[in-house]
């Protein structure tokens, strides 16, 4: 039964307070009919007491009146009609068809809030995804079912990096895969760039796009990633597809959340973000993964821009605590014209060990990765010393490491936007670079491996 009220008591920011209500449920979907408008605006119940409901609107409250506005409680939570026909289509951040095509005939209607996956039913991600990018494949391996965000800053080419990953990502087995792409508050150009990239590679027919751009309603952004993930779950767990979900930009999402929170006059946590930001992020990020008995998987790459490149800002910080590592885009490498500017040391893939080794990549992968990390770190330290004291003050080993670090950046990291390297190529390149160093410094590799690979 749908209930209709004309008792809007107050409006503040994105919130409406409706009084005199009865039988309304928490989290219920709400339609608000503003006089003189044909289509109702959508919201949901955020807090409900005996005769009063606080409704959070997904569209702006501009023009809404306390008088004459009709509020209809739909008796159900926000659901997305899903179908396999969503592939190849573009939707708004609120789930409306944007590409001028026909409406989707839903096979199912799914609650966009999703439900937590039972940890017992999960299966540990362990399939290697080859992105064709050495600094990722060798050093910070991405695994199917992982959630691995890109931490970037204003003006850095995170979009190009994400597009390159989306373009080149290969599941070696050649199974069905799809891209679900959602933008939250990015500029029109950015959104268009991604759309074009996807079209260029012919991946459009395997993609679902949800677009909320900067000009769109702020509060709608809270819904957008949930729509995307609901579609992804449907494709992965009911149609056995391997889904790559790209969410950009999580910073805008968090800001929308903060806006609602402050309108509710909640006690803020750090920097004015609500205390439940962690939990809220988790309900999105934890929707990645694999489950027992299902073939499909969801891999997530959320993108966020760190305000002032500050990793300790609540948004990257809380994200980092939930996701299984992060790719950091380095401003330094970018300034020096290297692409992709992945900060190898700052980046981390927590699941790398599950995706590498014999039968997945190659037996030497784990050890050479450790060695490259260690040697590169030492080289960078030597570089710092050289800046202070001059190169002449370095000993032989330090000088070799310094040279190694330079070449590592020039050859290994800087591979360009269009180069795609198979994992073996990347590993061999690593060995080639290690030849520049004295044998005695290769402490992280077992002698058998050095015998086998360093010679060839």
């Amino acid at each position, binding site marked *: 039964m749908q209930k209709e009220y004309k008792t809007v008591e107050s409006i503040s920011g994105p919130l409406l307070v409706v009084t005199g209500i009865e039988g309304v449920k*928490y989290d219920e979907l709400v339609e608000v009919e503003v006089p003189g408008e044909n289509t109702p605006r959508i919201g949901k119940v955020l807090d409900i007491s005996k005769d009063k409901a606080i409704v959070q609107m997904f569209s702006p409250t501009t023009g809404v009146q306390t008088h004459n506005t009709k509020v209809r409680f739909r008796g159900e939570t926000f659901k997305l009609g899903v179908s396999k026909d969503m592939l190849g289509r573009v939707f708004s951040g609120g789930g409306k068809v944007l590409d001028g095509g026909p409406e989707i005939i839903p096979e199912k209607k799914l609650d966009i809030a999703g439900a937590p*996956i039972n*940890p017992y039913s999960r299966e540990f991600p362990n399939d290697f995804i080859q992105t064709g990018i050495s600094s990722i494949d060798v050093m910070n391996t991405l695994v199917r079912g992982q959630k691995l965000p890109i931490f970037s800053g204003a003006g850095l080419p995170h979009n190009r990096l994400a597009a390159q990953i989306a373009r080149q990502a290969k599941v070696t087995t050649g199974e069905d895969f799809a891209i679900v792409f959602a933008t939250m508050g990015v500029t029109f150009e950015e959104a268009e760039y991604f759309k074009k990239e996807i079209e260029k590679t012919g991946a459009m027919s395997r993609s679902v796009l949800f677009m909320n751009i900067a000009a769109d309603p702020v509060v709608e952004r809270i819904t957008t990633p949930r729509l995307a993930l609901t579609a992804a779950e449907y494709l992965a767990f009911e149609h056995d597809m391997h889904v790559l979900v790209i969410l950009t930009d999580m910073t805008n999402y968090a800001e929308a959340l903060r806006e609602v929170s402050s309108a509710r006059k909640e*006690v803020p946590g750090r920097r004015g973000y609500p205390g439940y930001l962690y939990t809220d992020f*988790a309900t999105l990020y934890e929707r990645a*993964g694999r489950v027992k008995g299902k073939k499909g998987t969801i891999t997530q790459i959320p993108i966020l821009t760190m305000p002032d490149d500050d990793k300790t800002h609540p948004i990257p910080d809380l994200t980092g605590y939930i996701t299984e590592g992060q790719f950091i885009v380095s401003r330094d490498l970018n300034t020096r014209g290297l692409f992709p500017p992945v900060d190898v040391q700052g980046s981390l893939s927590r699941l790398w060990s599950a995706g590498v080794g014999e039968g997945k990549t190659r037996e030497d992968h784990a050890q050479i990765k450790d060695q490259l990390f260690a040697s590169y770190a030492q080289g960078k330290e030597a570089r710092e010393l050289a800046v*202070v004291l001059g190169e002449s003050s370095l000993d032989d080993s330090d000088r070799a490491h310094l040279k190694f670090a330079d070449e590592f950046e020039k050859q290994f990291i800087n591979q360009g936007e269009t180069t795609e390297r198979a994992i073996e190529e990347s590993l061999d390149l690593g060995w080639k670079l290690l030849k520049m160093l004295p044998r005695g410094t290769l402490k992280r590799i077992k002698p058998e491996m050095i015998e086998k690979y360093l010679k060839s």
Partner: protein
Amino acid sequence: MNPEETTSKIIRVSGPLVQADNMRDAKMYEVVRVSSEKLLGEIIELNGDIASIQVYEETAGIGPGEIVVRTGKTMSAMLAPGLLESIYDGIQRPLKLIESESGDHFIARGIEVAGIDLKKKWEFKPLAQKGDVVSEGNFLGEVQETTLIAHKIMVPPGISGTVKEIKTGEFTVKETVAVIETKDGEEKEIQMLQYWPIRRPRPVKNKIFPDQPMVTGVRTIDTLFPIAKGGAGCIPGPFGAGKTVTQQSIAKYCDAEVIVYIGCGERGNEMTEVLDEFPKLIDPNTGEPLMKRTVLIANTSNMPVAAREASVYTGITIAEYYRDMGYSVALMADSTSRWAEAMREISGRMEEMPGEEGYPAYLSSRTAEFYERAGRANLLGSEKRIGALTVIGAVSPPGGDLSEPVSQATLRVTKCFWGLDGALAYKKHFPSINWLTSYSLYVENFKDYWTNNIAPDFAQNRALTMNILQEESKLMEIVRLVGMEALSNEEKLTLEIARSIREDYLFQNAFDKDDAYTPPQIQYGILKSILTVYKEGKAVVSKEDFNFNEFKKLETVKNLQTLKNKKDPEEFKSFQDKAHEEISSLCVGTSAD
């Protein structure tokens, strides 16, 4: 009045917080069932006849006017054979049963499943006899729960008297296995299943001073910053510094007899990894699969927030229960910051006056209460028994900044601080425990233990190691300013040895099966060998005109890195002899010039 007959109705819903009226007779922390969906909740505030309830399940679709049913019980853990090898959510529902009840990989709502298999029959062997006078905590019998653990059935707290009847054979946990006649002539039937309210510590006779280290096999911890059996420690660190890996490697290899691992508001895949790995991994202390001694509690970050708040209490109650049997138990909570955040969220919704950073004012008292449940204690019961409960909590300070409330509240009550360092993790030095800032207040307690069980000079070696590392950090400042050449040979030696300590001793690969666990004797051997080179070297390099590069070229010095591959104590002896020989020959060589 029968709680079932009350006519409580919901008057407000705000996320996990629900308020209901007509609750005048309700108790604090009483368990209630909310709405016809029977969502599980717990009363956390009473105000007149209005109760605030934190609901352990998602509240979407719930609204005012729906019923709330009281159960009359406070939130309790079910304690009986069958706990080990289980994996629970925060309120002790087995995740496996939730899966079969939900029929899906998602967690459905309103599922009622018992924490313990009530149908399974266990072989009960009596330890007490008819006519024995027993008091609370006394053993009545035991059940071989897993190949590792004999589960003692104890007289429940609050009961004492004479054993009137005791049975032998196979029973379910709800069947009576003994009857005790109390002083007043009352007959109490005892089942294997007991309940205990999770927020109340289980009683012990008295606490005693912890003087035995818990061996973890992690070299940095055992040698530099050891923790006691019955101690409390914390691992704070920014993300990516390796909190979870460190916690897991302690859970895997430490010499506690029972492990309770709480994944509190952390990643789902991490729990899956533990689930996959523990049954396969072999405990180096017993040779049995690790799972046989483990209870897992997994309330991941996307599962309901209120259940996350309860999960640490559920875990510690189970841990105390095994401690009461006389076992040494280790509890890992990863991460207590998420638990604190859950408290903050509920507190915020109750519109309480916030303390620092929005956390409730009772944050530090709750934290202290939790860690105080750790300890080594003389247990209840007329037999003399000692049990220990070690608690290790991970803390996830925002941005790695330890001045935040949760870290500070934790530091005040824990005696071991393993400070994980983002900069070390960045250099891929793991475990990234910073040797300059971390501490253990137990070191003094262990001196006797080390002398008697490892070697008389263990404590000295440890102190010397710490000195060298401290010295290194000072010298590095100088090097950064004026370069290596400004240092004397002796200082160069210190740097060289400090590097070796860091790279060849403290660095430990938790993913390499040979390296992940080092027994104390081997730890001693490696460290002593490195320090032998230092001591021998010190006499030589201080000679005038000594070329330090000569020293670096020595086989012994080059071979320092191979030390950690040695498994036999004899090998260290021969290494030390060789070092002595080689370095003294250097002495002869230079003096001959």
